[in-house]
C-alpha cells in the first residue's frame, strides 16, 4: 500500500463514515424507484407462473448472448462512471472527463444494441401486443430505456460540472453517478427476469 493508493481509496478523505455518496436525497430516489420496479417485477413473475408456457415460448425468441452483451456494456459504463467519481474526488479532472465520455459511449452502445434487438424482434413479428411475454418484455425494456435516456441528461449535467473549474461540485458528480448506477442495476434485474428466469 502506497500513499497514493490511500489517496484514491473509494472512501472520501473527509470523515469516512459520515459521507453519504451524493447526499441522502438521491438515495431516496434510488430506493423509491427500486420499489416501483420491484412492484412491476412482482406482477411479471406472478403472471409468468400463471401462464408458464406462453412465457417460455416468448422467451425462446430472445437472444441470450445479446442480453449478456448488453449487460456487460452497461456494467462497463457503470465502472467508468465510478472511476470518474473517484478521479474527480482526487482532482484528476482530465481523467474524470475522459471517463464521463466513456460512460456516455457505453451507454450509447447499450442503446444501439437495444434498438437492434427491438428491430429484430419486431421484424420477426414479436411486438408489444403480440403476446403476454412480449407485453412485459417491451414494457420493461422501454421503461428502462427511458431511465437510460434521462441518464444521458444526467451525464450532460455531470459533464457540465466537470468542464469548468468554477462549477465543479463533488456532491453533484456523485448524484449523477448514483443515478447512472441505479439505471445499471435496474437493468441487471430486468435482464435476469426477462432472459434467464425459467
Amino acid at each position, binding site marked *: 500500500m*502506497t500513499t*497514493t*493508493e490511500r489517496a*484514491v481509496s*473509494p*472512501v*472520501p478523505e473527509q470523515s*469516512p*463514515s*459520515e*459521507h*453519504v*455518496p451524493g447526499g441522502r436525497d438521491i*438515495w431516496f430516489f434510488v*430506493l423509491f424507484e*427500486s420499489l416501483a420496479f*420491484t412492484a412491476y*417485477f*412482482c406482477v411479471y*413473475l*406472478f*403472471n*409468468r*407462473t*400463471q401462464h*408458464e408456457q406462453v412465457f*417460455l415460448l416468448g422467451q*425462446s425468441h430472445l437472444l*441470450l*448472448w445479446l442480453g*449478456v452483451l448488453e*449487460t*456487460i456494456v452497461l*456494467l*462497463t459504463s*457503470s*465502472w467508468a462512471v*465510478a*472511476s470518474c*467519481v*473517484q*478521479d474527480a474526488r482526487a482532482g*484528476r479532472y482530465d*481523467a474524470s472527463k475522459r471517463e464521463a465520455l466513456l460512460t456516455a459511449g457505453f451507454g450509447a452502445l447499450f442503446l444501439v444494441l437495444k434498438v437492434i434487438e427491438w428491430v429484430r424482434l419486431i421484424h420477426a413479428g414479436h411486438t408489444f401486443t403480440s403476446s403476454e411475454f412480449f407485453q412485459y418484455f417491451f414494457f420493461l425494456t422501454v421503461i428502462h430505456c427511458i431511465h437510460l435516456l434521462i441518464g444521458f441528461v444526467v451525464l450532460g449535467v455531470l459533464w457540465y460540472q466537470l468542464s469548468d473549474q468554477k462549477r465543479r461540485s463533488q456532491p453533484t458528480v*456523485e448524484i449523477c*453517478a*448514483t443515478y447512472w*448506477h*441505479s439505471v*445499471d*442495476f435496474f437493468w*441487471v*434485474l430486468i*435482464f*435476469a*427476469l426477462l*432472459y*434467464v*428466469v*425459467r
Partner: protein
Amino acid sequence: MENGFNKRIFVAWLILVAISLVYLWIDHSATHQGIPTASTVVTVVAICFALIKVRIIMREFMEVRGAPRFLRRLTDYWVVLMAIALFGVYFVGIAVA
C-alpha cells in the same frame, strides 16, 4: 498507480461480468434441444445472482461501502426486501397455478 487506477472497483467489475457470463451456462442447463423448460432452480439462482450483482454495484460502484451505517443497512435491507417480494410472489404464483 499515478493514473489513479483503482484495483478494487476493477475487481468488482470483473466479478459482475463473470456472473453475467455464468448466466449463459445456467441457461444452457435449462434448455433441452433448443426448447426452454420451466425450472424453479434456474429461476431462484438467476434472481439470487441478480440480487448479488445489485448488492455489489451498490457497495462498490455506488460507494455504499464507505457510507454511514444507516445507508449500508438500508441498502442491504432493500436487497432483502426485493428478494422476499420476488420469491414470495413467485412461490405464491406457483402454488396458485
